[in-house]
């Protein structure tokens, strides 16, 4: 086999290797910013986002309409400031509410949007007014335990009978 042919093939081989590593770095480990042509951004403030992570889906009626693009802490009011990058095709009215939901009992957390009745739609950069926080299981258990404890000793026998 000719020397130049071998050089060519090894060149292709190395190029494939570099492409593979780049793919792993960019697509799998994700180092790229998203394209901003076909999306617009809304903001929502939550008291508690639980385990919501960047890149978590934003769903409306169960349909994925966008992704969480950034989560920051608003240091003036101490609430979580979440940026939602939504698909341009989907527009939501001004009184749309956002809540943080969990897929299944142990599944990933996502943002659910519920369309309101207002005629005017939200523009890019607007902030959602109505939000409800994530359900944090530990806090829920904590509340349950305190209310359970407050009942005192007399209900002890009843709970033991259960």
């Amino acid at each position, binding site marked *: *086999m000719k*020397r130049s042919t*071998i*050089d060519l*093939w*090894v060149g*292709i*081989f*190395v190029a*494939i*290797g570099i492409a*593979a*590593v780049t*793919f*792993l*770095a960019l*697509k*799998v*480990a*994700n*180092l790229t910013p998203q394209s901003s042509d076909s999306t617009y951004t809304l903001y929502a403030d939550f008291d508690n986002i639980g385990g919501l*992570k*960047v*890149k*978590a*889906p934003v769903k409306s009626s169960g349909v*994925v309409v966008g*992704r969480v693009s950034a989560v920051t802490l608003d240091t003036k009011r101490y609430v979580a400031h979440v940026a939602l990058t939504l698909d341009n095709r989907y527009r939501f009215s001004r009184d749309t509410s956002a809540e943080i939901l969990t*897929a*299944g*009992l*142990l*599944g*990933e957390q996502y943002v659910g949007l519920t369309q309101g009745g207002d005629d005017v739609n939200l523009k890019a950069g607007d902030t959602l007014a109505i939000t409800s926080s994530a359900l944090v299981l530990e806090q829920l258990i904590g509340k349950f335990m305190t209310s359970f404890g407050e009942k005192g000793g007399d209900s002890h026998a009843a709970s033991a009978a259960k």
Partner: protein
Amino acid sequence: MLETLLFPFRHIGHLTVNAIWRLGFACRFLFAVLKASGQCFTRFGLVVREMYFAGVLSLIIIIVSGLFVGMVLGLQGYNTLARFGSSDALGALVALSLLRELGPVLAALLFASRSGSAMTAEIGLMKATEQLDAMAVMAVDPLARVVAPRFWAGILSMPVLAALFNVMGILGGYLVGVVMIGLDSGTYWSQMNNSVDLHFDVVNGLIKSLVFGIAVTLIAVFEGYDATPTAAGVSSATTRTVVTSALVILALDFILTAFMF
């Protein structure tokens, strides 16, 4: 009477001494190859030529096996994850198991059986037909001309093949999970992005494959150079290459995983 009693012990002792002697010989061989490697970098064409045989010709087997391993991971992973209602995590499962373990290990096993055995057979046959001696007579160092280029070609090819294996596996998982079963494509990638870290997972996996590359190629060229110069000797050396490489890869993988993760 005493002689027959002592025979098993003598046999065990002989095997032990022999094994340690070969280990030491392999170590000294490694240093000799490294010392003779200078020519590889002044005449890089030699390494490129060997990379063609070791790396480029392994592309097909790596691509096809990577794709199938990824598809199997997708199927099995989906079946198990679906029972816990977390089939969304399929992307993370496929990517992490490939990047951390399966990619480097399986690519190295394939590389050992595809290219390592070929190197051993080639060098062994050169020795059996006295080509290496002929080179030495002509004042050409066979270590520098024959062994070192193959050694470096193997080391350079291995991470490329492992990275390609990972990519094909992830695409295979995508094919089964998203195209065939119908999971959300965005969730597949976003779950993967959430859980894969560039340094921790991707770079560590590549370091693993580099270490496997060094081990496999050293075993291959050593077994070839050390082969008994007969037809049977070359054949048993080739077998030893594949068996030893496989064991060394799996043992090294355990050690590296214990250190890395």
